[in-house]
């Protein structure tokens, strides 16, 4: 695919990873596990994007974190905060509205020009 093609695709997907993280982390999860979950759901992301993103969302108060030291290696578990859940709801609503809007571009009869 051409570079500009990929670029547009990337632009469109930007932001969806945030929403996906907020939704998935309603049940606590750690970075690498989340990376695999995201991939399974079709939001392929690189670790070097996801890890700083999680930290940013935590700093903004949309995620909370906790160290789990019970297992062999200590892992940082993230969880969507109340504020994060509100953001996720808003983003989801907006995404649905967009889906409707995009569908209407092709299914609705073209705007009547004579009216």
């Amino acid at each position, binding site marked *: 695919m051409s570079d500009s093609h990929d670029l547009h695709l990337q632009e469109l997907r930007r932001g969806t990873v945030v929403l996906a993280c907020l939704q998935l982390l309603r049940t606590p999860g*750690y*970075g*690498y596990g989340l990376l695999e979950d995201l991939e399974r759901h079709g939001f392929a992301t690189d*670790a*070097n994007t996801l*890890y700083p993103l999680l*930290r940013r969302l935590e700093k903004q108060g949309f995620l909370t974190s906790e160290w789990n030291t019970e297992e062999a*290696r200590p892992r940082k578990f993230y969880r969507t905060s109340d504020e994060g859940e509100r953001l996720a709801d808003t983003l989801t609503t907006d995404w649905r509205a967009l889906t409707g809007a995009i569908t209407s571009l092709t299914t609705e009869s073209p705007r009547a020009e004579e009216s």
Partner: protein
Amino acid sequence: MNTELTERYLQAAIAGLPTSTQDDVRTELTALIMDATEDRTEQGVDPVEAERAVLTELGDPAILAAEYADRPLQLIGPRFYLTWKRLLILLLWIVPPVALVGVAISQALVGAPMGALIGESLGVALSTAVHVAFWVTVVFAALERTGAQTGVEWDVDQLPELQSSGTTRTDTIASVVLAGVFSAALIWDQLRGAVRLEGESLSLLNPELWPTWILALVALLVLEVALAVVVLIRGRWTGMLAALNTALAVAFISWALTLIGRGELINPEFIDLALHANGVDEPTVRIIAVILAVAVVASSMWDIVDGWLKARRDRRH
């Protein structure tokens, strides 16, 4: 226990982070690298190969560190770029030429030879340009990192005029530089003498004009510059500005015509040495004076008309 390669990667990735988050990020990244490496070895990849692949995928640790710290990966971003560029161009048009002229004058005053004068003033102009570019860029790079606002906001009034009526920045800069050079030349002429005849330094203009008449002319030049700056700030000529421009031009005409009429503009010694000594007789000197007067009046009249034309053109837009 981390391998050496992983340890090196971690060191590089947390190096620039605030100490409070370093341990946190280190532990988190360690877990990531080990998890990912394990995944690959379970699929039958050689452990050393797997580790290399994982670290390669994570990419340059400096980029990762910048992402973690929310540091910009550019010197000057889109928020400041245009302001930086505009300011830099403006300063580069003004500061190095002024430095060049200043050094040239001071070199001439101390009687430096021509080669040294040219070399010295070009060198200073060049290093001034480098300094201006460097420090302006440093300031903007700092602004980019502190997130400060320049307070410069664009609004529609800044749109350039449709028909460039000469209210451009280049005009103002040219006016400032020319006035500077001309004032400097005037003062140099009076203090050192601009002409060198038969081994003697002579001023071109009558030395008796110093200081009153010469300083009056310098004052006119300063006012001319002030007018050009006002036009630049307003972005357009107005009737008021054209009237001021006319007043300045008339003042210049009367300055020049008075002195030419009295035969006091040019240094009489210079006329003796340069013209009379070369067989130019008195009527010819008078003709030269008339030509000079006509040139002064014609160029000033043009300046006046030009101002009014621009004012009228700007009123229409």
